[in-house]
């Protein structure tokens, strides 16, 4: 096959996921969510339904998570007054680890997808 739009999407997702892996560690919330949303849209346009389905739960979680964030006037997810509570901190850390695992796996999945589409 040739370098299709889908292949381009996979390539882009591959690169962006590498960035997301770091964001998941550093807890850069909004960039992470936006990037993830961005390549979900790309996959939607490329009609990569399976890949999209794999990403939808996380997308939904992101939307829910951001909707239920504490009352804040500025963008952000973490409330300085509660983040130091051990249970919330532990939750956020656990969340970070889970996402890290997810991004790592999806990194290899995108690599596979890219190669699969690209190779004849």
């Amino acid at each position, binding site marked *: 096959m040739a370098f299709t739009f889908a292949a381009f999407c996979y390539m882009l997702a591959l690169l962006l996921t590498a960035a997301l892996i770091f964001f998941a560690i550093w807890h850069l919330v909004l960039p992470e969510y936006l990037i993830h949303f961005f390549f979900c849209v790309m996959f939607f346009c490329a009609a990569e339904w399976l890949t999209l389905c794999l990403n939808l739960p996380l997308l939904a979680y992101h939307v829910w998570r951001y909707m239920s964030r504490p009352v804040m006037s500025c963008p952000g997810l973490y409330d300085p007054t509660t983040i*130091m*509570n*051990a249970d919330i901190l532990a939750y956020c850390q656990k969340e970070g680890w889970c996402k890290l695992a997810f991004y790592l796996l999806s990194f290899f999945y995108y690599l596979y997808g890219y190669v699969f589409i690209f190779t004849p």
Partner: protein
Amino acid sequence: MSAPGSTNPSSSGSYSQSSTPNGGAAPPRQNGPAQTYPSMYASTGYYGPPPHQQSYPTIPAHSTSVPNKTSITNSAQSANYYENNHQQQHHVYSQQPFQQQQQHPPYATPGSYYGQQPYHGVPTTVQHPQQQQNPSLVPAPAVGPGAPLYPIVSYPSVPGSGQYGTLSPSQSTSTPGVMPIQMSAPLHQYNSSQPTSTPPVHPGYGGAPPSQMVPTVNGQGTTAHQHYDPSHQAPQSYDSYGRVTHSTGGPAADRPPSGTPSTSVHSSPGHHQGIYEIQIFKFQCLTLNVSPSFSLPYSGGETSSSTTGSASPLPNSYDSLEGGSYPDSMPPSNDMTNQAQSYSSYGYHTMQPAYRQGPASRSDSSPSHDLYGQPSYQQYSQPFPDLSQLSAALGGLSGVPELEVEALRPVNLLQERNLLPPRPLEAPEPNLSADLRKVNCSPQTFRCTLTSVPQTQALLNKARLPLGLLLHPFRDLQQLPVITSNTIVRCRSCRTYINPFVTFLDQRRWKCNLCYRVNDVPDEFMYNPVTRSYGEPHKRPEVQNATVEFIASSDYMLRPPQPAVYLFVLDVSHNAVEAGYLKYLCDSILENLDKLPGDTRTRIGFLTFDSTIHFYNLQEGLSQPQMLVVSDIDDVFIPSHDSLMVNLKESKELVKDLLTSLPAMFSQSRETHSALGPALQAAFKLMSPTGGRVTVFLTQLPTLGAGMLQSREDPNQRSSSKGVQHLGPATDFYKKLALDCSGQQIGVDLFLLSSQYADLTSLACMSKYSAGSIFYYPSFHHLHNPAQLEKFQRDLGRYLTRKIGFEAVMRIRCTKGLSIHTFHGNFFVRSTDLLSLANVNPDSAFAVQMSIEDSLADSSLACFQAALLYTSNKGKRRIRVHTLCLPVVNQLSDVYAGADVQAITCLLANMAIDRSISSSLSDARDALVNAVVDLVSAYKSNVSSLQQSGLVVPASMRLFPLYILALLKQRALRTGTSTRLDERVFAMCEFKTQPLQQLMRMVHPDLYRLDNMSDQGALHLNDTVVPQPPLLHLSAERVSRDGAFLMDCGNVFYLWIGKCCNEMFIRDVLGCPNYASIPPNMNHIPELETPLSERVRAFLDWLQDNRAFSSTIHVVRDDASAKSTFFLHLVEDRTDSASSYSEFLQHIQQQMSK
């Protein structure tokens, strides 16, 4: 402190002394100390060579055995050392900020340290304690006074140094002259009194035995501080000498203990005549003040200087200040080691000039003092005597079987009805040996939910009880040992303060009870100033008292201690004028103006707001206060920088003028809007250079500018039994403001006097996160609601005069294996275990939840230490340390035997509040019920051997279901009963901040019958008889029409008079002829001369004792009005929407059988 080059010439000038060491044209402040010392030493001359001096026949022999050549050399040098080394001293600690570079970005520009402007105060204040005490940083060899490494210490011009201008020039120059006089006078008294109380127990020290020492110290408690102050106050009132002493004291004292401690002894003859005669100590500035009768620990104990008038903004790394970071985490660079080396060597020498200053001006220095001083401590340094005893006491736990058996007695709640003890419940005693129990922390200060700590998390889970601590750290104490010492002895690894529960392995080593690290005992600590004996570190007051207070050195400061600064932000809109609080507030402030905690530096300011913001120029010299109106509330600015917050002492007349005229000024106001947000922003800008306390009085919902709020409450939903909405804030404006305030050490206290909904949920954030307090007076009106008015006035009286601590941090440490995971109270959690408290007040309490991460099997004891570092209102940095020690058990029955039902209830209440905010109210209520269900089933399945039916709980927890039921009926957590949202939220805030006893009285009031009090078991205090009527269950069946009942609800008393009450009681106590003539709103008990009245009042007064805010009393007649007040609190009874106690028990039983 003013940065040089700022708008404040006089205060900056005073810091230039380092560049003019000999004081050619010395600014006043340099002269101050120079005059002080002579006067002090003159007074010591009263007993010149102390009487016991003759008793030293063996001295020469001993002194030869002691290699004290060093000291002789030192004393020889030191005469001119002062002159020569004057400049070098500054280098000594100029290195310390230097070491900080990696950690404090603002200091990270080394070049700026060497600018032209000398500035001492700030750099020293950023030392890390661990740097001092970390011996690895302090190589022993003394290099001697070398060439200056950093010739001039300067401070980088602080961004925004214009804010220094807030210190009025006249203020900064006014006080130094006064201070030396204050200091020398008490010193004199103290010295002259000393020889009379010196039986030669330890001839070398002429020390009075403790029994005699105590009254001496007691009477002169303040003087002991003051005497020591010269060295400790040096940071403020003198130049840097004193501080050099401190900063150097640490490392040197921490050197590995050598067999010849006298190498560190130096002789400064004049100092030998010092107050405590601890000249054998190498640093000679250890003064220890044990003051058993201090009602307020610093009530006049300090003579504060004015030189630290205005504080400078510095990075807020209090984290490192209180010592949270470990020394190991310090970057081990070569650079630093070098500095440390020179640092120690300098320090050791430069320490002397601090004390040479006095002697240098006196000719009668007597070198012979050295001779008797040094040998004598050798003489008395005996092998550690009580080691075996102590460790036995620490290790062995002598059980108290009978207590335990009683606590474990299974109680069937369905059968036993009389559960209440006759007297209010006391905290359970931990099952410790008598020695440990004696020194353990008071349960009023520090309480654990489980006085027997389970060994593992599994055991804790099995017990189904929460593990947590309840703290009341800044409580007013009757007795508090205050310790002034060079080195505050702390564990090198976990930074725990030495406490009564450490183990002394031998004379020179102690084992930390929290992390089990073995530490060295510093030389200084070997000497006990109370008994004046050497070699008994376990007799030091730090090791004898679980609650101590240290005077902290400059290591514990990030900036010079701030003065007391108070700003009042007053609502003057039409609504406020209508409520009429202004007059009473101003009267109260006027009345208490002299009692406001503070010193000569105290500053005060006022700010009023309606739809605009009004500032008041109170600059000294004005004929009357000037009002400055800022109407641009979208972009608030401060119209004048240095005249809005004024020195209270200097501008007192203007302040009084303002307070007198303020109520009338706005009486015609028609402005209905309230711009609270902008006013708070203005307050923040006004206060941020110094920090301090902002007190906000508000009467309505803020409707203008930033932080405006909408009414969210739907009155129809007040009694809904479904969820309660809007328990979370509507905006984060107030939270962000509070965090900004907290960063600048500003505490915001809120007085809400609103009759309408004012969205306390959102407003409370401003106090919650800035460690403030919240007061709420629903439906306040000066005419229509006299009860609230009276409460307001009483609260104000207490609020204005109560102790206050500024720029505080608190850290709670616990034994390795335990970890704290959630905090409750008003503060900002800066790191996982550090609470940042911009202000700390004696009436707020904290709670923490803990989990057991590792098994505690290593030790039989678990310890908890809370250290509160704060600046007193006299500008002293102090550390209050509480240590609690509890046994560790591995049996579930022991865990139950040690359960503290009141503490558990309070902790659960805090957790329920959190749950209701994060989840929902019904969730929280379910969780509370489940807590009871869990306990009963856990006890049934694990401990209770007899398989009896019914609800069986251990006797220690027999009140638990009752308390939980009472919690569910509280305003904060109740459903079904009409509750206004603000009142509910306020009740939630109170749960989070009230100390345990107060909270328990609110949850489960104490009910007494007063009309038939007998003298049985009465207390005899002084010459009054205080009857002790038994506690009654909170049930209408215990209340009879022919009696008079007193209900103690914590902040209010209800005296309920039955219809058929004994007429004699009504006549003798209330002063009314019969029941019908009792007025409907009776709010006081008349002082009648009848025996019955006297006994009732004695009882009431006794109940009022130990209560921070005095309670109001309401006489309630047996009519319809009583239903909403008195009968509402009878929690065991059924109400329209809530079940009775027996129904509740049945409900529990049903839940269990599910």
